[in-house]
């Protein structure tokens, strides 16, 4: 009951100085709003990255033909074809490697009826789907016998399906690629964006041999562009990388001291780096936003100090008629707390609206979690108590006679 009365006193005092209370609150509103918004954006970025990483497939290497440097001239990986399907096969025999997929991609137009869509057509083996952890949502993927017979079958990514077939099921239909008919045997589950922002679903797969012999006449028969390999486990990746390099050097008869004619990239490590960068970025966003929260808190303290000084006489009168120290302390502390809590409530609402706008208008991925809301409120309450306590105690410790005599 006593607490309720003091709460009323605090509210009355705030009501008597509405503009000042509102301006003090504004500091908290901006602080909490910034924290909520920045955390939503940071966590959104993190969620996007981890989704991209998950969709990539785990424990992944990509081996590109061509060295990163060649005779002092830097060349892009994959520019000079040096890898063969038999290299891929040999890699698959390594104990650390779970699956391996030779890849021979090229762009081509896929036509169905009056629709056409240009996409990256990947010549590969059935293991590709294992390496990428990629499963069909309808139909199936091709088999080794399809590869052996260079069958004219094709598996479509979701973007291709959407552009050629709309909502129809493509399985069993015939599409044309470079004037050859291909039977659609499967449609893949959607994977979304890759780490570098490409649409992973904008692709189609055909058997490696079909791509090499029938679609993209190969000037270097048997050559492939790159090999994807999946290690048995995360822990095995360093050893697998070592073995890979040794194996390929031996197969390509590269003498010690000579440069590799291929490039091995640990995609999983690259992805972890990207995830780490995003996490750092997100923490930094939060930290920057927290500074405004701190500034808001200092604003509360500043105003409360002014208020205590200004109301010294009032405090003196209250003490003279029997207010105890805790009564005065609580009244001022409550004022600070109300300002910070109401401010944070409004700030959180504004932060949510901002996050929603960023998502709907800005097309950003944002994630608002319960923990970020709780964090905002805990911090706001802590700020209120922390920055309100000193001025409140200053008021409570006033000697009645001195407070009454003030000016």
């Amino acid at each position, binding site marked *: *009951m*006593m607490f309720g*009365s003091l709460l009323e*006193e605090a509210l*009355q005092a705030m009501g*008597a100085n509405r503009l000042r209370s509102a301006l003090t609150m504004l500091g908290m509103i901006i602080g909490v709003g910034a924290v909520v918004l920045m955390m939503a954006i940071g966590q959104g970025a993190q969620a996007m990255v981890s989704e991209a990483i998950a969709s990539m497939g785990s424990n992944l290497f990509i081996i590109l033909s061509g060295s990163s440097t060649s005779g002092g001239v830097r060349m892009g990986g994959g520019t000079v074809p040096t890898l063969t399907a038999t290299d891929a096969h040999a890699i698959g025999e390594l104990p650390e490697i779970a699956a391996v997929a030779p890849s021979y991609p090229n762009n081509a137009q896929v036509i169905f009826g009056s629709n056409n869509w240009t996409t990256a057509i990947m010549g590969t083996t059935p293991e590709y789907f294992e390496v990428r952890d990629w499963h069909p949502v309808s139909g199936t993927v091709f088999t080794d016998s399809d590869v052996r017979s260079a069958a004219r079958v094709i598996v479509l990514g979701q973007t291709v399906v959407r552009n050629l077939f709309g909502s129809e099921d493509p399985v069993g239909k015939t599409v044309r690629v470079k004037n050859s008919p291909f039977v659609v045997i499967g449609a893949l589950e959607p994977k979304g964006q890759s780490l570098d922002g490409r649409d992973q679903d904008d692709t189609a797969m055909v058997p490696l041999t079909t791509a090499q012999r029938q679609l993209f006449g190969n000037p270097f028969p048997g050559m492939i562009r790159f090999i994807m390999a999946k290690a048995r486990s995360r822990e095995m990746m360093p050893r697998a990388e070592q073995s890979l390099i040794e194996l390929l050097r031996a197969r390509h008869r590269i003498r010690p001291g000579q440069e590799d004619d291929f490039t091995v990239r640990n995609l999983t490590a690259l992805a972890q780096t990207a995830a780490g960068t995003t996490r750092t970025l997100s923490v930094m966003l939060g930290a920057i936003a927290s500074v405004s929260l701190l500034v808001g808190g200092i604003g509360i303290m500043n105003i409360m100090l002014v208020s205590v000084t200004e109301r010294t*006489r*009032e405090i*003196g*009168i*209250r*003490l*003279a*008629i*029997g*207010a*105890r*120290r*805790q*009564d005065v302390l609580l009244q001022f502390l409550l004022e600070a707390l109300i300002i910070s809590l109401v401010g944070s409530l409004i700030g959180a609402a504004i932060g949510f609206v901002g996050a929603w706008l960023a998502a709907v208008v800005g097309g950003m991925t944002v994630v608002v979690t319960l923990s970020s809301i709780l964090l905002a409120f805990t911090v706001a309450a802590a700020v209120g108590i922390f920055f309100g306590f000193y001025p409140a105690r200053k008021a409570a410790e006033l*000697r*009645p*006679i001195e407070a*009454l005599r003030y000016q």
Partner: protein
Amino acid sequence: MPSPLIEVVDLVKSYPVGDSGTLEILHRLNFTIDAGEFVAIMGPSGSGKSTLMNILGCLDIPSGGRYVLNGTDTARLDPDQLAALRNRTIGFVFQGFNLLPRKTVEDNVALPLLYAGVSREEREARALELLRQVGLGHRVGHKPPQLSGGQQQRVAIARALANSPPLILADEPTGNLDTHTSEDIMALFERLNRDQGLTIVLVTHEPDVARHAQRLIHVVDGHIAEDGPTKTILGRAHA
């Protein structure tokens, strides 16, 4: 023999001046006031009357000696116990009223009850009753700045009476009021003393105001120069 309401023994008050020196304002005062007395304190400006009243009101603490209020040695009390004493045992009326200007008259009067932990309904009822008692029942919702000086002092007196304390201390309660209004206020004090048996100690410069009291303490330069029945002392001064 019942113990007196106020007992002052060798009371000293000094203020620090400069870096190390002190200035003694009240010099070893000794007096007692019994419950039900109406005492006026007079004396030249700067003689230490307000200093004494602030100590009696537990707003300030003595530098030496003892102040026993209602059987309790105030030196032994912590600030919160002193606050409780100010809340329940003492009603203080100031020369400058000391009302909270933003609060209504009713809320001002009810404030000591709030700190006594009285419920809202009881507070409102009691405040209304007190305001009627001082003749301001029709001004409940006004704020102090909207009232005349005399009316404000009535509000302050109602506030002093809120927790029914046995002791009312008033430091020049009529100092800011004209003669006619002063008479009204003094009549109110006299009635409270006569009808409710309240002990009243008030400081004044006006012999006409002091004449309402039965006893007069004359303070000069921090000493008690005279202490006796008002009629005797004032009668002699006029002669």
